[in-house]
């Protein structure tokens, strides 16, 4: 008999909690409300790329192993390693992240999440400067200006615009008509197509965002005239409008993206932008200006919270003798220095994501992969341990992009003999403790 359920999608960090599915005892029949990214997540259930048994790379190629043997193999590889790395953790539940931290503590590993090369850099500087982030509800109800800075929301988080820009909100019943949008990017992305006549499109020369931020800082303080020729490829008229928007809007939300994070200015652009946020908050008598980080993985924020509560540090944690010690390294520098002899990759694909030089070094040492789908890392991993899909085949807690915790439901049974990340990591920890 089919039934209708309201579930939370774990396709991206937006964690849409308004998805309706129609399912019977065995499978999902219909999915309503989810975007293509969400649908792809559900398609993983029966994908050809799904890993359905533990695999071990031998001289003769990949061999299927029994679970008991595979776990023993994993323990043996881990115990032989002196400097293991644990990386990924952004696509598993918070409960599993805690277990991964416990394993790292047990084996004196270096543990890091995808956040370290993504929003983590921004969050660290923001917390040092005392700037907090905002929530989706606040943006929906209060924001009258949304600034996308170097991010292409339409491609990365497809439903975010319909939630924050086109929704009406409690205090802003007219919705889109009263919400203005500024997009700063180096070329016209798909996100520019949602812009209306009142919105402001800023096309900036690459790596010159810092110049624009510095000039805006001077302008909002007053007594500053923009140069007639404009700056960084932006007209004077647009700069004037940008300043007017910043000073006249009540609730401003800035969504900084990867383009701003990966500037050659080595974090200075982030600091300048955060100083502009502080400055505007001091100048404005009503309303406030705040940030919303737009990471991609559905539980990247979760690891920040779990690691902070378990170790006092939100990312890049080095354990020694069962304690977290001070370390300035992150996953990239650790690989660059070849300061590792084993990597345990959980729910991510660094071989495809990292620069080629880094991937080459990573692939030169044994890899244990814990994931549910085949990837670039799968092709070179020594031992592969498959898991079920969190939010579909097993439940768990995840943090939405605005740091709101949301419980993911179990909808259907996983394939036979496939366990959740939590169950698998618990078994590894138990065997390590023996």
């Amino acid at each position, binding site marked *: 008999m089919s039934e209708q359920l309201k579930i939370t999608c774990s396709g991206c960090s937006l964690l849409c909690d308004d998805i309706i599915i129609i399912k019977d005892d065995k499978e999902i029949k219909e999915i309503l409300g989810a975007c293509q990214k969400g649908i792809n997540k559900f398609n993983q259930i029966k994908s050809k790329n799904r890993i359905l048994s533990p695999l071990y790379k031998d001289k003769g190629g990949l061999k299927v192993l029994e679970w008991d043997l595979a776990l023993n193999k994993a323990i043996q590889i881990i115990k032989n390693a002196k400097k293991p790395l644990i990386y990924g953790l952004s696509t598993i539940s918070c409960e599993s992240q805690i277990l991964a931290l416990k394993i790292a503590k047990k084996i004196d590993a270096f543990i890091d999440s995808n956040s370290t090369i993504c929003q983590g850099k921004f969050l660290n500087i923001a917390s040092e400067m005392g700037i907090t982030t905002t929530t989706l509800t606040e943006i929906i109800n209060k924001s009258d200006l949304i600034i996308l800075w170097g991010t292409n929301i339409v491609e990365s988080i497809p439903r975010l*615009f319909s939630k924050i820009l086109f929704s009406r909100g409690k205090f802003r019943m007219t919705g889109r008509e009263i919400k203005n949008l500024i997009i700063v990017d180096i070329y016209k992305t798909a996100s520019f197509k949602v812009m209306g006549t009142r919105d402001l499109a800023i096309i900036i020369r690459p790596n010159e965002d810092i110049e624009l931020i510095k000039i805006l800082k001077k302008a909002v303080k007053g007594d500053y005239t923009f140069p007639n020729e404009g700056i960084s490829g932006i007209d004077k008229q647009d700069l004037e409008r940008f300043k007017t928007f910043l000073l006249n809007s009540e609730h401003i939300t800035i969504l900084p993206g990867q383009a701003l994070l990966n500037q050659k200015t080595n974090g200075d652009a982030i600091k300048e932008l955060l100083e502009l946020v502080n400055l505007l908050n001091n100048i404005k008598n009503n309303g406030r200006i705040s940030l919303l980080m737009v990471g991609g993985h559905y539980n990247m924020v979760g690891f920040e919270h779990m690691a902070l509560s378990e170790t006092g540090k939100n990312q890049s944690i080095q354990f020694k003798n069962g304690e977290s010690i001070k370390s300035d390294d992150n996953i990239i520098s650790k690989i660059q220095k070849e300061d590792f002899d084993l990597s345990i990759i959980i729910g991510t694909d660094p071989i495809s994501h990292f620069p080629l030089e880094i991937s080459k070094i990573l692939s030169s040492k044994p890899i244990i992969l814990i994931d549910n789908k085949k990837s670039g890392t799968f092709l070179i991993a020594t031992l592969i341990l498959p898991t079920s899909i969190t939010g579909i085949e097993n439940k768990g807690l995840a943090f939405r992009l605005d740091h709101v915790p949301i419980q993911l439901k179990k909808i259907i049974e996983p394939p036979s003999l496939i366990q959740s990340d939590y169950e698998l990591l618990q078994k590894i920890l138990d065997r390590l403790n023996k």
Partner: protein
Amino acid sequence: MAFSLELLKGNVKIEDCTPLLDDPKYQEKYLKLKDLLKSEEGKKKELKINIENELCDGCGICVTICPVNARYCYSILSGKAPDYPPDTHQLFMVKEGKCELLNIKYCRRLETEGKERECRVCETYCPREALKIEYI
């Protein structure tokens, strides 16, 4: 606006607009419009909303921004997907990651309680340009 809509639908002809014929200053515009419509003028046409499945990524902007959807599906006001089964007036919904047109009858471009409007918000804000309003 109402006249141009009627013209598009083929319910009236350009000649029905008297100022365009009476005043010589509109002569150029009259000829331009005549050239634009050519043989299509006066042919009865029907409103179609075409959704190109290949382009649509199910972002749901059309579902949220459609004024008819917003009037009848309360959850849309806060950016959430509409409830299921859909309301009888609901125009759009996202199914299997693609937008689906449910019922064109209640579109603001068509006669609804005598308040027909030149509404194009779904087409204007579609970031993928997957949605097109046409008269065929």
